[in-house]
């Protein structure tokens, strides 16, 4: 485990941490979320009343829409909010049943960290469930840090030995997936032990679940990357012209030398504004308005980048198919990267990932809902040749179906073909 990943930040400012939860109902994921909300005090009296006082009904809190209850399935990702004295949290709660890959991919794209819940009482001989392997594989694919909540420890008498077995099994899994910084914590969501307050076993000296989430690093590391500022729009007043967008990677300062678009026109930043006020520096995640020292022709879809940026018209990417309608060979889809939309063609499926046994199936000719594949993709306009692991903000893309307007795939660039 990388010790730095969980180093406490010294600053007193409260941070916002976005994390997702994965796990099946049986593993106690819903109970765990109910516990986080209840013990952090965010669950208010009227909401608590509606679920009853019984701890076992904590799970009912995450019950979804009437439309879902009527059909007995969970359709969609739900977002929930709680806070502690040190941070505020947004949970993207991905249901574990049907369409789970689609839900998990959606939730993961809105998260910095994944909390994977497993039922300790059902792990026999250190063999993890297929679903756990799937959840870990998707977390790895989407570049998330992973915290494993080893739940229902009360049912196995807080056996340190069995916890250690699970930890070892997960370490093997993480090794196979090249997941770094995975950490396990023994909890009982039902009793509330080691979730928001310490309890259960005196042998556990490590951080409890909420502390692990609080200490997770989040997207701060993006600040060090080279600048990527996709432009959303141009604004003007009588004398000046401002280009606005959100910094996806790196930082920007007045005086910085940058390049514009695939042609890499050089330009110099004259001013940077946040919320209408000039600033000396703005970092990744910040919405800014910038001025150049000179007249420039920049429009939505262009990227203001650090010199050295590369573009490509062909990339190798991992693609998660999210639409009910399967991929149609030869069809042109709309690709959105940053603020750019351009046509894209999937030229070849290299292989389909099996996210349970991690094997690669070659020779696939179709992609349907929940499939994850490595593909070669060509675009009409050049796109940033950033890989997802270097620059998640610009190494990611979405595909839209130009006929139905559905969002049909999530993509992560692995390699540019130049």
């Amino acid at each position, binding site marked *: 485990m990388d010790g730095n990943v969980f180093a406490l930040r010294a600053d007193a400012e409260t941070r*916002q941490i976005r994390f997702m939860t994965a796990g099946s109902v049986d593993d106690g994921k819903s109970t765990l979320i109910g516990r986080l909300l209840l013990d952090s005090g965010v669950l208010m009296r009227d909401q608590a009343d509606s679920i009853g006082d019984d701890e076992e009904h904590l799970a009912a809190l995450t019950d979804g829409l009437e439309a879902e209850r009527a059909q007995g399935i969970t359709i969609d990702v739900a977002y929930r909010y709680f806070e502690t004295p040190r941070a505020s949290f947004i949970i993207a709660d991905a249901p574990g049943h049907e369409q789970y890959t689609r839900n998990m991919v959606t939730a993961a794209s809105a998260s910095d960290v994944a909390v994977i819940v497993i039922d300790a009482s059902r792990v026999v001989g250190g063999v993890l469930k297929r679903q756990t392997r799937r959840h870990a594989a998707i977390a790895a694919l989407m570049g998330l840090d992973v915290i494993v909540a080893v739940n229902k420890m009360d049912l196995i008498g807080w056996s340190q030995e069995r916890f250690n077995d699970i930890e070892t099994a997960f370490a093997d899994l993480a090794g196979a997936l090249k997941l770094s910084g995975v950490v396990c914590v023994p909890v009982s969501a039902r009793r509330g032990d080691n979730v928001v307050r310490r309890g259960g076993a005196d042998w556990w000296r490590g951080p409890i679940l909420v502390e692990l989430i609080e200490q997770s690093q989040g997207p701060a590391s993006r600040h060090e990357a080279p600048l990527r500022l996709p432009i959303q729009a141009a604004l003007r007043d009588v004398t000046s012209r401002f280009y606005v967008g959100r910094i996806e990677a790196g930082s920007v300062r007045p005086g910085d030398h940058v390049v514009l678009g695939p042609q890499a026109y050089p330009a110099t930043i004259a001013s940077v504004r946040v919320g209408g006020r000039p600033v000396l520096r703005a970092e990744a995640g910040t919405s800014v308005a910038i001025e150049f020292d000179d007249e420039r022709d920049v429009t939505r879809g262009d990227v203001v980048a650090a010199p050295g940026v590369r573009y490509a018209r062909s990339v190798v990417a991992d693609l998660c198919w999210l639409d009910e309608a399967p991929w149609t060979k030869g069809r042109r889809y709309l690709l959105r990267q940053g603020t750019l939309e351009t046509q894209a063609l999937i030229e070849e499926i290299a292989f389909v990932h099996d996210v349970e046994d991690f094997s690669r199936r070659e020779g696939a000719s179709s992609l349907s809902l929940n499939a994850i594949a490595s593909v070669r993709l060509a675009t009409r306009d050049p796109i940033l040749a950033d890989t997802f692991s270097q620059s998640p903000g610009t190494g990611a893309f979405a595909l839209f179906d130009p006929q139905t307007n559905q969002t049909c795939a999530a993509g992560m660039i692995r390699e540019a073909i130049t």
Partner: protein
Amino acid sequence: MRLAYKTDDDGPVSGEAAPVRASARLERLESESVYILRELAGFERPALLFSGGKDSAVLLHLAIKAFSPQKPPFKLLHIDTGHNFPEVLAFRDLRARQTGLQLIVREVEDSIRCGTVRLSPEKSRNAAQAVTLLEAQQEFEFDALIGGARRDEERARAKERVFSHRDAFGAWRPRAQRPELWGLFNRHIGVGEHMRVFPLSNWTEADVWAYIIQERIELPSLYYAHERDVVRRDGFLFPVTSLTPAADEAAVERISVRFRTVGDITGTCPVESEAGNAEQVLAETLTATISERGATRMDDRANSAAMERRKVEGYF
């Protein structure tokens, strides 16, 4: 324990005006909302729903920041139930004048007159707004309606998209929602369809108040403690107004209250409070034990699925 906004002494937030720092979370929320609002630049006829309530006041403030130095490219739209507090309407008109944005008001009363809305004792004017809203959307061919709804407000909102697609009938189809990936919003709509856009999706009530303090955003006076005649019933404080007179004069009390939401007079209740400024309201919000809508909206309480049904019908 809801102390994420800390005071300098690290203790619980007191009733005193506590200095709230511009926290990393508010910066992140503001940047996200500004980003979402700027995504609307490509729409031809977007409108921002502006009622004069606190969430829409925050939304308007963010819109001005997002498009500075230009004016936001939005019209303001208010669906008036005809039962709004005069202070709120005055504030609405004042903000429209100050910002120079065109304000369009459409009345539920007009929908009642032309027969598209028929009120029944079960159906409040608040719910009837959905019909009038869709009529206004069609009349002006709005392709995007921007609202201040938050996901923390209510269960049915927890699964709402930031860019929420509505078909040509204005209906929300929870099963057919588009996956929303990495903020790569899908802004595409077909003929006659429109988008509902929720820039405050990830804000909580406490975030909204902390931001109101940080940015010194003005609000209608109803949000702060004032003396008011009320009647206590079923755990609610019912305001006594000309529209909602007290059935029993003897039950009327005059106490210090404030409103947490300011919707339709006939369906919105104040809470007992001495909080005279935004700092004190935030302090109360952080220690509140009842959710915002649970405390103040009778129509939601009636049925946990009420909001979902109204959303399916086109409610905001």
